[in-house]
């Protein structure tokens, strides 16, 4: 075996800790009450269509995405709408949500919830995109960008490759890994649907080399699906970033501030491919997802299939409880995840994992002075200079930060991970991005 493909600039290799990699996906029972936040996608929040006391069935549309970048929202359970109220989200902000009291498990008519694989595709590209839009599918990797928007290639551009992201470079997380192992044929059909929607005839599934079983399984399957190939890539964080993955697989570089379509690529997560399969072939909207519950002290690290809106404490209970010395509950992986405000936060479309971190690992180390060792510059996968950008943001030099391309930062956290002085580089980069983004928006408004 020769050299494995990877991206060239920067990158780090944190301990993988894939504790739940060999745990089968368990279907979690439906909780007595679910909270479905209205703003689950990137862009404008959905608009609620139900009111207090309404009876809903699983899969019924309860909120519609009205603006261009917005997604539909469906009831994940059957029951009665208890109320429309604000609930605490991952960051502690109270945001509008639909709260539903569960009663049985009745599904909306026309949804096929059997496990039978339907591989015949007889829809046009427009029909597929319409179905994806109706089903409210968003990017399942965590960014939650509405998928139908991504599938509509802007005029004048042409997609050449579809890239399916099965990299899962975040340590600890195994949701995509398990999905690839257990739902391989569905992902293949989903990939074909996406290929047809984008009018491309080549698709590459990129998988990191720490998942040889998934690579083997999908390579075997890919033989019977035209145009799909599986490409193992080297284990390196943040290979799951779409710009990094394109560089690794095709050696193409997405220009600064541009989208992957600029180099003829569209990247979708394996979870999204699976959701597209379910939406198009089975009429099932996006109302559940696979989520990893893990952590060094967790008794039973697991992969669960849960309905959207389930409070996280149900998942933690199913993994045999919160370990005593938990210092932090992180939504997502350890690199890009965010510490959660409480365990009552509901599962949303973008939740990929819950990481319970022990106290000793959850505190930051004391910050020291920058010694200009340039480790952060070496680690940055976007070729930025994090120390400089952080300093600029700290000193409110937002003009300088913009000139030094702060908006290209993908917030992967490699710089902060590698910094020997424990400087909260990413915090300052986020601050800078926040401010510079505001300045750019203000400029466009004029």
């Amino acid at each position: 075996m020769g050299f494995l493909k990877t991206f060239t600039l920067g990158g780090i290799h944190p301990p993988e800790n894939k504790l739940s990699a060999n745990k089968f996906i368990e279907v979690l029972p439906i909780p007595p009450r679910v909270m479905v936040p209205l703003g689950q996608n990137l862009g404008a929040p959905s608009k609620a269509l139900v009111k207090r006391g309404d009876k809903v069935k699983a899969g019924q549309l309860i909120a519609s995405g009205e603006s261009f970048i917005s997604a539909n929202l469906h009831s994940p359970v059957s029951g009665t709408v208890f109320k429309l109220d604000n609930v605490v989200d991952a960051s502690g902000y109270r945001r509008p949500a639909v709260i539903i009291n569960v009663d049985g498990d009745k599904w909306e008519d026309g949804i096929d919830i059997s496990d039978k694989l339907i591989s015949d595709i007889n829809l046009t590209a427009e029909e597929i995109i319409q179905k994806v839009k109706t089903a409210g599918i968003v990017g399942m990797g965590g960014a939650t960008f509405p998928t139908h928007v991504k599938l509509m290639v802007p005029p004048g551009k042409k997609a050449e490759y579809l890239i399916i992201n099965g990299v899962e470079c975040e340590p600890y997380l195994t949701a995509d890994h398990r999905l690839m192992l257990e739902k391989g044929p569905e992902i293949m059909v989903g990939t074909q649907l996406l290929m047809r929607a984008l009018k491309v005839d080549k698709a590459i599934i990129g998988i990191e080399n720490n998942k040889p079983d998934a690579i083997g399984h999908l390579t075997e399957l890919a033989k019977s699906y035209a145009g799909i190939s599986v490409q193992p890539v080297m284990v390196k964080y943040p290979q799951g970033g779409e710009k990094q993955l394109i560089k690794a697989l095709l050696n193409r570089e997405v220009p600064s501030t541009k989208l992957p379509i600029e180099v003829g690529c569209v990247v979708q997560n394996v979870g999204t491919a699976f959701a597209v399969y379910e939406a198009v072939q089975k009429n099932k909207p996006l109302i559940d997802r696979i989520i990893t519950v893990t952590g060094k002290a967790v008794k039973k690290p697991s992969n669960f299939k849960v309905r959207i809106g389930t409070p996280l404490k149900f998942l933690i209970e199913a993994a045999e409880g919160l370990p005593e010395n938990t210092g932090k509950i992180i939504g997502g992986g350890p690199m890009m995840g965010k510490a959660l405000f409480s365990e009552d936060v509901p599962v949303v479309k973008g939740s990929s994992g819950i990481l319970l971190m022990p106290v000793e690992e959850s505190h930051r180390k004391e910050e020291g002075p920058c010694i200009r060792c340039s480790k952060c510059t070496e680690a940055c996968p976007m070729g930025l200079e994090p120390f400089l950008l952080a300093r600029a943001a700290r000193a409110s030099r937002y003009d300088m930060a913009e000139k030094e391309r702060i908006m290209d930062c993908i917030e992967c956290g490699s710089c902060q991970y590698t910094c020997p002085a424990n400087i909260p580089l990413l915090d300052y980069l986020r601050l800078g991005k926040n401010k510079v983004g505001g300045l750019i928006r203000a400029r466009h408004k004029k």
Partner: protein
Amino acid sequence: MNNVILISVAVLGGLGLISAVILYFVASKFKVYEDPRIDEVEEALPSANCGGCGFPGCRAFAENAVRQAKNEKSLDGLFCPVGGNEVMQKVAAIVGLEVEEHAPMIAVVRCNGTAAHSPDKVNFEGATSCTFANALYSGEGGCQYGCLGLGDCVAACEFDAIHMNPETGLPVVNDKCTACGACVIACPRDIIELRKKGPRDKRIFVSCVNKEKGAPAKKNCEVACIGCGKCEKVCEFDAITITSFLAYIDFEKCKLCRKCVEVCPTSAIWEVNFKPRKPKAEKTVPLKKNEEDKMQNTVTQAIGIKGQSQTGSVNKEVVGSEHIKNKSEK
């Protein structure tokens, strides 16, 4: 040898003379006329270059003031918050106009979510920047409207007028405040407001910006405004309006009668620099405030009354010394 020295002196001197003549003509040809009053106005200004007037620095203000005085014959809309009325009088005298008196303003921090009132639910570690923390999460106490306590306002202040109180974790404005408004802009949660300083520094304001309904607001902070509307009803001057469960006192209409302070069930309305309230039945001479009290009053803006019961029943017997004690606790 002497010749060389003489020649060099003559050549250089000649060159200098020719250049001087050229420069003289160029300077008079391209001369830009500048109103001398601009310099005078700039001289009169405090040179703080804080931007509180809305112009980038004192020079820009002076230019605008002179231009406006020339074109519109008025100085309306121009005001130097740092110099106040005194400086504006001087500026007006220079340009030969009159200005209206502006009521002096002061920055007011409208949050009382101290550790005691809004206990920490989570811990925050990371960059000490309110803007960053605001984008990240709701706050240690859980209130998404309240003060994050990381000091963006302190960093923005050019006048050493706002400081963090380490005990409460809230910023405190002292009397160096010039009402330039830098902290108002720096606060990502719009907690700081410029309000009228008031007669003898007396002010009444709602020390809360929580727009949530009563129950969730109170859950996170016991001194939150719950939007009950009692103050709105009791106000005789229509100074109080309630929008999205939050009371706001219009300082132009407020007559400082303190009735709203009495009825507020959560002590969210503050009275500042008032004399301590005397017990109801007692008829005494008003207590004279000594200098020390005054100091404390200006340094810590504090709650007037503490210990009111939920129903707002009369339990307001707070005497002078206790009143001050309450303040220092805050």
